[in-house]
């Protein structure tokens, strides 16, 4: 039994009767047992998974209609609600929270006979880019366990990379799918804002965050989009994708397409290995018939500051509900006055969440809003205009997903501004609502490098075609588990 097969190959093998869902799920659980002590991707594992796989095998044998997933094991970032399962957001604040309903993506995948193999680790409330801010301990990079796996969807990327599932769902607010995908050598996708419903995703920064798949191949991501994308009456920011088939024509190629290389994302600060990989990717795209030219997007320089100002403001509002009255942990009321009780209860937030809540109170406050929040919103508007102008000339934009290689656990945790700058190449897609994908492209000194492609809004299908073309140009080494 080969756990390393792609999600689509799994479907093919089960459909043809070469493997059973039960065997594959059994092997996947064994893999989790064997490697997860070391990697810590999972916060909880579905104890009923084998039984669910047997039910799907029974449906297949009896000729009943079976959903497109055929019992495929999918891991879910622990900030998405699965009914009657714990949803902790990797926070002590929600340690015992059991979701009373399914997120829309979960409902859709249940209809397709997916098996949720477990809930995976993240930075607390998705605030971070290493998983070191998880209240339950950091995940480790399967390529080298001394290094961070990226984040905040680090558990998702690790679980896909280490063959602990076939695919995963993460959420991307400023690169939280693409960054760990790049660090762990998997595909990570941030769709056009509104393409995937956020209903049941625990909110951090609603105006820019999106759920996105992490997978071993670009085709698998297209397959996942076919199942979860589209309008949802429970999320009025969703868009009608007219049931687009993202898999059809994925091998259309990129001949004659124009690609802009974003100058501000390939700078002196870019690691030489990342720079070399980027130049190599550009050369390969050109050899496939694409026309690549440098382009300047001036507002990129201010994008990280704008991003953190806007997201902290939204986080400050979203996290206000965690007062230990409506959601919380076991902490008795007796002996406390209202304000002191809430202040005390909020001590259960970790350091990064606490810092962002303080910032979220500060930057939009009277006397400071003009200097910070309003200016950040103006940068967002101007950045969007600049990107829209770029897409009048170019079909796609390209940059390294992260300007540096994965770094060691603990290396940057005490320097929040150094961590900010790791996001410089990813936040633009979120602030502008554009789709972007990280494609595994290279490995330098045993550490993965991903290349990022962007497209204009609602051009998700053509973006996947370009990503597929790039993916076909490389053969990467296997993860050294």
């Amino acid at each position, binding site marked *: 039994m080969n756990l390393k097969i792609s999600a689509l190959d799994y479907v093919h093998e089960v459909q043809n009767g070469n493997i059973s869902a039960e065997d594959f799920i059994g092997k996947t659980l064994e893999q989790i047992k064997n490697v997860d002590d070391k990697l810590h991707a999972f916060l909880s594992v579905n104890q009923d998974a084998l039984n669910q796989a047997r039910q799907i095998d029974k449906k297949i044998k009896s000729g009943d209609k079976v959903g497109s997933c055929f019992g495929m094991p999918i891991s879910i970032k622990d900030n998405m609600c699965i009914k009657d399962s714990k949803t902790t957001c990797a926070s002590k604040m929600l340690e015992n929270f*059991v979701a*009373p309903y399914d997120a829309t993506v979960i409902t859709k995948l249940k209809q397709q006979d997916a098996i949720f193999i477990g809930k995976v680790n993240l930075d607390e409330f998705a605030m971070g880019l290493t998983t070191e801010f998880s209240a339950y301990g950091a995940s480790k990079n399967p390529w080298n366990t001394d290094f961070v796996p990226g984040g905040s969807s680090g558990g998702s990327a690790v679980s896909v990379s280490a063959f602990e599932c076939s695919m995963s769902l993460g959420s991307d607010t400023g690169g939280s799918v693409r960054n760990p995908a790049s660090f762990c050598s998997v595909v990570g996708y941030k769709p056009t804002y509104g393409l995937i419903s956020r209903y049941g995703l625990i909110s951090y920064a609603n105006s820019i965050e999106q759920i996105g798949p992490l997978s071993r191949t670009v085709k698998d991501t297209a397959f996942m989009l076919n199942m979860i994308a589209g309008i949802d009456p429970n999320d009025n920011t969703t868009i009608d994708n007219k049931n687009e088939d993202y898999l059809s024509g994925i091998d259309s190629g990129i001949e004659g397409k124009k690609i802009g290389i974003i100058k501000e994302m390939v700078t002196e600060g870019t690691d030489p290995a990342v720079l070399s990989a980027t130049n190599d990717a550009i050369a390969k795209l050109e050899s496939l018939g694409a026309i690549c030219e440098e382009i300047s997007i001036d507002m990129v320089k201010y994008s990280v500051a704008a991003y953190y100002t806007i997201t902290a403001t939204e986080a400050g509002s979203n996290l206000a509900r965690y007062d230990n*009255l409506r959601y919380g942990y076991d902490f008795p009321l007796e002996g406390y006055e209202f304000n002191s009780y809430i202040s005390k209860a909020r001590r259960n937030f970790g350091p990064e969440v606490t810092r962002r809540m303080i910032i979220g109170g500060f930057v939009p406050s009277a006397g400071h809003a003009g200097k910070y929040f309003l200016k950040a919103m103006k940068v967002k508007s*101007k950045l969007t205009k600049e990107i829209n102008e770029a897409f009048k000339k170019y079909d796609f934009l390209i940059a390294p997903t992260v300007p540096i290689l994965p770094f060691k656990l603990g290396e940057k945790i005490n320097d929040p501004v150094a961590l*900010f700058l790791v996001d410089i190449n990813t936040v633009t897609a979120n602030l502008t609502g554009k789709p972007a994908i990280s494609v595994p492209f290279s490995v330098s000194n045993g550490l993965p490098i991903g290349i990022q492609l962007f497209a204009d809004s609602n051009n998700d299908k053509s973006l996947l075609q370009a990503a597929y073309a790039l993916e076909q140009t490389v053969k990467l080494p296997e993860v050294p588990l």
Partner: protein
Amino acid sequence: MVSEEEIEKVSKLMKIDVDDHKEYVDKVQSMINYFDILDSAGVESEEISMQEISISTLREDKHIPFNEKLIEKLNNYKGTYVRAPKMSS
């Protein structure tokens, strides 16, 4: 440059109380100071773009029957009421 006093005031308003106060203030200060880069973006005359959503596209405002299970998930409740601490001593 944002002052310690300003950060402390906001923390209090946000009902956030931490043990290692100095460490939090220092880090928050360095994060907010980084945001000063926005001053050089030259966006003063820029309009903030807003996306209008028609009221007809909003979810129907209908009554959803009360879910007892949600109340059961609370730590401090009595009947159908959430128990909260006293507003003042």
